[in-house]
């Protein structure tokens, strides 16, 4: 095995998944290296979850080849899952059990005896900040606590790879920050993270590299900063509500060449290569009433996947 192959945790080539002739994933190539945090971004229906399911061996690809942690998928998915942890999109904690029983039972599916698991319980409970609630029934936990428990549950087998499908969807900002901090910690321990998300801020903060998916294909893949550099002008002015209406009234008369203007819902986004050019031209129309910011991953996302609503 070459050092590059040893360094590769996920390798997928030419992945296609068809449902009754309709390609949901349509030619995806992916490489994830050991120790990196990799994000799959994309609107609903882009094929992110289906791609993850194929990587985990939960559904066979219609075409293409997958290797995860050196195991052929789906042929040896079982061997791979022994060394991986999965955070599903929707919580599937066991409602019939307490916090501690959830961890012990889940570990038993990996063949880890209850006695060995009890020794590790304090660490896992501390990780989830649920030490005081070890014997609480699941119904007594908030959404954030359940998510933390789900994350702790994936660690019972000390996985090298974590696969997380929308790990923070539906959480409040505090709970989200908490999960991010935990994921950072897991990556520092040398684990590889593959996640999907709708939150561009999440991808920008957590991930070394991100792939933007749309309509079953990867349309761009790079470090977040690289994606921004390659795909979008660095300077952005954002106008909302009243300001956006004012722009629509006045801008056609003004000289706004050299600016790229996008409309997303009721917001007007104005992009430019040169900060001074952007600000002078916008000020000529708007005076002082505008919001300036550097370009971010959300701008890239909207540019690459379009502005239409997805269902």
């Amino acid at each position, binding site marked *: 095995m070459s050092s590059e192959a040893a360094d590769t945790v996920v390798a997928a080539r030419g992945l296609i998944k068809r*449902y009754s002739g309709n390609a949901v994933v349509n030619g995806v190539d992916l490489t994830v290296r050991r120790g990196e945090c990799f994000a799959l971004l994309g609107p609903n229906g882009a094929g992110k979850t289906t791609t993850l399911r194929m990587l*985990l061996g*939960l*559904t*066979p690809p219609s075409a293409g080849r997958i290797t995860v942690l050196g195991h052929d998928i789906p042929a040896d998915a*079982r*061997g791979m*899952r*022994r060394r991986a942890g*999965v955070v*599903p999109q*929707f919580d*599937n*904690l*066991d*409602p*019939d*059990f307490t916090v501690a*029983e959830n961890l012990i*039972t*889940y570990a*038993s*599916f*990996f*063949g880890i005896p209850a006695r060995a698991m009890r020794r590790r319980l304090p660490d896992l409970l501390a990780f989830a900040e649920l030490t005081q609630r070890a014997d609480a029934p699941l119904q007594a936990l908030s959404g954030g606590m359940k998510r933390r428990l789900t994350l702790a549950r994936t660690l019972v*087998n000390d996985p090298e790879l974590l696969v997380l499908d929308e790990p923070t969807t539906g959480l409040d900002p505090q709970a989200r920050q908490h999960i991010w901090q935990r994921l950072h910690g897991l990556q520092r321990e040398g684990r590889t993270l593959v996640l999907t998300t709708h939150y561009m801020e999440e991808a920008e903060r957590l991930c070394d590299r991100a792939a933007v998916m749309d309509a079953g294909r990867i349309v761009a893949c790079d470090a977040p900063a690289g994606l921004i550099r390659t795909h979008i002008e660095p300077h952005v002015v954002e106008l909302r509500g009243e300001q956006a209406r004012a722009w629509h009234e006045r801008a056609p008369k003004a000289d706004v060449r050299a600016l790229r203007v996008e409309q997303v819902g009721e917001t007007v986004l104005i992009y430019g290569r040169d900060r001074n050019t952007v600000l002078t031209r916008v000020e000529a129309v708007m005076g002082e009433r505008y919001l300036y910011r550097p370009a971010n991953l959300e701008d890239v996302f909207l540019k690459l996947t379009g502005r239409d609503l997805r269902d």
Partner: protein
Amino acid sequence: MSVRGILSTAPRLRPLRLLPVWRRNLRVWRKLMIPSLMGNFGEPVLYLLALGYGLGRLVGHVEGISYIAFLGSGIVCSSAMTGATFEALYSAFTRLTQQQTWAAMLNTPLEVDDVVAGEIAWAATKALLNSAAILVVAAALGLVAGWGALLILPVIFLAGLCFAGIAMIVTTVARSYDFFLYYFTLVMTPMLLLSGVFFPLGSLPPAVALGAQCLPLAQVVLLVRPLMIGHWPAHPILALGVIAAYTGASFWISAAIARRRLHS
């Protein structure tokens, strides 16, 4: 995929891996043991006492034994069927759909065949618990001939696997709980009435009685009834063979359907 394509792969039975699935359900059951036993054991015992004494007074003796002894052995069998069926239908379906317990298991090294086998084994265990409790009541009423009746227990466990397997086919096909009504009306109730639980098969028209012999519950009754009164069953190998065949075929079919459902 065609029906033949789905069924072409044999399920893999790995006892060590179905065990954690079985144990998970045991762990839950231990929390709800009292209400669970009340429901699954109380009702058949009431039937046994009410029908056994009430109807027994009118009927007198059947096939050479008191009606309550006749009915008692039948209810030991039928409660194995209902115990296994309810567990493999409603409880397993809840874990498959609402609770997503199966999905969580499939994110671990367990595979669909392990989960289906573990659920069937657990449902058979519940059948065994129910029937054993009723057997104890029957013994207290003096309806059990001797220690030889302990042979009923392995027969009941096999019967539990069989009824759980058949119910598991329905569970893996079902899209909602309502679907189970078809199974109760079209399969369970006719089988309960035609298997010699309440009256001997000989009372039926010969053609119907012959057809009824093909029902797994009828074969279970043919084994259990003589064992309970201290006799040896007439055709034990044949009866066990029929029950085992139903068990194997239903595991094969239900595992295949579950694999297609969960891996699509």
